[in-house]
Every structure is written in C-alpha cells, then in structure tokens.
C-alpha cells in the first residue's frame, strides 16, 4: 500500500493539470531507451571510441574502426548480436568486473598487470609505440632527451605505464589524459612538448589530419616486451572461461577464412597480425 498511495499523494499537486494518462505516456517515452536488458544471445563489448583507426565515432553516432569490424565478425561467427557499450578507457577493467559488459574490445594491450585482474583472448594484433612531437624537434624517446618536458599519455594505457616507469622517475613530466584525442589537442595547442602513444593511432588520429600538420614521429619505435606485452586482446572476466574458448575459436576461424585479412587491409597498409 505504501509506495503507490504515497506517490499518488506526492505527485498530486504537481500533476493535476496534466491528465494522469498523458503523464504516464510521457514517463514511458522518457524511459524507453533506458530499458535495455541484456539478453543471452547478446555479446556486450566495452569500447572507448576515441581511438581511430581502432575505434571511433562518425558524426552520425555510429561506431567505426578495426576493432568494431573485428568484433562484429566475431559476433557473427558466434551467432550472437554485438552490443557496444561506451566506457572511459581508464575504467574499463573495473567496468568489466562490474559486469557493465562481457568483454573489452578497445585496443587493450595484454599485460601482466592486467592479467592479475582479468583474462585475455588470444592476441588480436600488435602495433608499435612511438613518440610524436613537432616536426624537426630534437626530442628522442629517452629520459635524457625528455627531461623537463611535458609528455602526454592516455590514462590507464600501457604508454602511461612505460612513460611513468622509464621517464617519470627521471624528471620527465608525464601528463595522463582521459582519452588520446584530448592528448593530441593539447599537443597541437602547445601545452605538451610530446605525446607517447600507439604509432598507428597517432598517425590516424593526428598526423593524417589537417590539424596534425607540422607534427611527426620523434625517434625510433619504442620496444619493451615486458611492459607492452605481446599485443592487444579482448579482455574477459576470469570466470568466463567458456566465452574465452568460444572467442578464441571464432578468432581462429576468421583468420582461416580470410575475414581478418580483409578487414586489416581496409585499415592498415602493413601487417599487424601478431608474430
């Protein structure tokens, strides 16, 4: 008796100009897109679409990118419907454990630190890490060269881990941002001296764009197997071993039937498959 009667009384003064019916219809309209309950055949992937060419958003709101197409083809192999859940990159692991989605498909590198928290599928792809700076800048991806400079990285990324561990302790100011596009815009306007990120993401998100004119890679590819790991994978909950098995099988199949190759060629002009 309590809630209904209580609310009836409560809303009386506010509502009585509208008829109750229009009010209820209004409420339902407001609610409709919010009520999407996860069905069993859905496969929900967490993604932070600020990272072209892996995942980004078109002006019409649809998602695009290598990870998105890879995920869609995995879903069709598994005969499940892909649902993409947008989440901030630095909250991915917690959100996965909190069951906001079933897998992280967002250029997530496979690392030992993350393996302590979550499981990974087999490796999806492996891309190099590079420093970017204004063209002609003498900066090199070393602590000596970067001392006293501000270097932007994405919060929660392997690039942040590397920069903090290798440079941050030696007098380089490492500045984490919530997403890579925010890093690039501060690099363009001059708040940062350099940015450290995935070479392909930098190329697509900055260097190939008109606003990225005047910027280029600084120094060579940075290698560190122990921090960067073997490449990226789909992050999964440790308890979902069945799902991990299914995804690995599907991944195997799209490698064999040429789907992976076809998507990869669409986005990259060189081989990104894991060695």
């Amino acid at each position, binding site marked *: 008796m309590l809630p209904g009667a209580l609310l009836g009384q409560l809303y009386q003064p506010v509502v009585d100009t509208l008829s109750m019916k229009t009010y209820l219809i209004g409420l339902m309209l407001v609610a409709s897109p919010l009520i999407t309950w996860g069905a069993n055949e859905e496969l929900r992937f967490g993604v932070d679409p600020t990272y072209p060419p892996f995942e980004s958003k078109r002006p019409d709101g649809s998602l695009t990118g290598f990870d998105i197409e890879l995920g869609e083809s995995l879903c069709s192999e598994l005969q499940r419907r892909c649902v993409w859940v947008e989440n901030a990159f*630095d*909250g991915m*692991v*917690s959100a996965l454990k909190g069951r906001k989605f079933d897998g992280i498909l967002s250029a997530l590198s496979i690392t030992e*630190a*993350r393996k*302590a*928290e979550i499981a990974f599928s087999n490796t999806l792809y492996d891309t190099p890490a590079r420093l970017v700076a204004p063209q002609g800048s003498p900066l090199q991806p070393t602590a000596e060269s970067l001392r006293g400079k501000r270097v932007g990285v994405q*919060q*929660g990324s392997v690039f*942040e*881990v590397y920069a903090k561990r290798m440079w941050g*302790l030696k*007098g380089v*100011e490492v*500045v*984490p*941002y*919530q997403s890579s596009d*925010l890093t690039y*815009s*501060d690099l363009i*306007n*001059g*708040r940062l001296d350099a940015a450290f990120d995935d070479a392909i993401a930098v190329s697509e998100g900055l260097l190939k764009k008109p606003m990225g004119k005047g910027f280029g890679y600084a120094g060579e590819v940075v290698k560190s197997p122990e921090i960067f790991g073997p490449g990226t994978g789909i992050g999964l909950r440790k308890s979902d071993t069945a799902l991990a098995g299914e995804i690995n099988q599907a991944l195997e199949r799209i490698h064999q039937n040429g789907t992976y190759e076809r998507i990869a060629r669409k986005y990259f002009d060189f081989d990104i498959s894991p060695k």
Partner: protein
Amino acid sequence: MIEILKEFGANFLWSDGYRWSGLSVTLWLLVTSALIGLAAAIPLALVRTYGDRWLALPVQLYTLVFRGTPLFVQLLIIYSGLASLSLIRESPSLWWFFRDGMHCVILALALNTCAYTVEILAGVLRTTPRGEIEAALALGMTRRQLFMLVLIPSMLRRALPAYSNEVIFVLHATAIAFTATVPDILKIAADVNAATFKTFQAYGIAALLYMVLACALVGVFRLAERRLLAYQR
C-alpha cells in the same frame, strides 16, 4: 588498502615527488578561488543591489549564465575551447596564462563561485534591517561611510551561514580540476586506479579525504558563526 596508502599516501597528501599533488593542491585551489571569487563578488553584489539598471543588468546576466551552466562545461570552454583559438595562442601574455591548467581551473572556479556569492550577498543586502541604515544616517554618515562601515560588514556577517555552504560547494567543485590535468586529490585517485585497478579503494580514499576536509571546514565556519553572529542570539 594498506599497500596503496604506503605507496601513494604522500601523493594523496602533498607531493608526487616532483610537484605538489593531492590534498595540498585541492586546498590551494579552494583557497585561491574562494578568495578571488569573494573579493570580486562584494562590489558586484553592491552594484547588483544598489547600482543603476544599466550596471545591474550585466551583473545579473553574468550570474544567470554562470549559475545556469555546469562548471564542467565552463572549464572545458576555458581550458580546451580558448586554447583552440589562435587569437589566444598567439598572444604571449594570454597564452602564458591559459597554457597552465592550474590557472584555467582557478579562473573557472573563481568565476563560478563569484556568481553564486553575488546572489548570496545580494539576497542578504536586500534584508538589511532598516534600523541599521537609519541609525547610520542619523549619525550623519556619508554614503561612503554607510557602505564601508555599515552595509558591507553587516552583509558579510549575515551572509556567513549561506556562504559557508558555498565554500563546501567550492571544495566539491575543485574535484573537476583533474580534467584539466591538475594533480588534485581526485587526479591521484585516477592514477592509483590506473596503476592498481583497485577502483573502490582508490576513489574511496579520495572520498575520505574530501569528507575530512568538508567536516573541518564546517567546524571552522561554526566557530566563526558563533563569534561573528553572537549578537543575533
């Protein structure tokens, strides 16, 4: 929890080893922006209440805009929006100011709290007891004396309870600083979360710190009210 405190305790409180971080930065943001906001709000509140229409109107518009839009959006405009304009970047003095995230945050916080404080003070001014003004005039005070010796001190005292709430809100508002790369308490929590994946502990420690700060502020203001508003009891 214990390991996080051992590893990041100093970061949370005063320094990450190279610069101020955590509690000290949050306090700095709070004190500077609240003081600047209050200093600017006093004349604006007088203009808003006693100034002529063409002076009061812009002040009203300012408080409407800054109270009607989220602080987060105001900070985005100041930090990212202005920096995207070449006009700002090509002027050395402007760019010196806007290049630093800390300046941007303090400016946004000060503008924001100033707008709210103007409304608080103007509200208090409207309820100035007539007797106070009449007594001042009866003593033969000039207009200037009336403002400096009666209206403003009386306004500041009586605004204290509402203003203490506003200061707590400014404390809460400082948490937005991390979006402009300023290493305040919440930024350290985000770093800890990224480094350890212990989300609950990382943000939980931040919440505790803010709670302690808020309680301390409430205590200080209670003491101040007891002294400064003693005549009302």
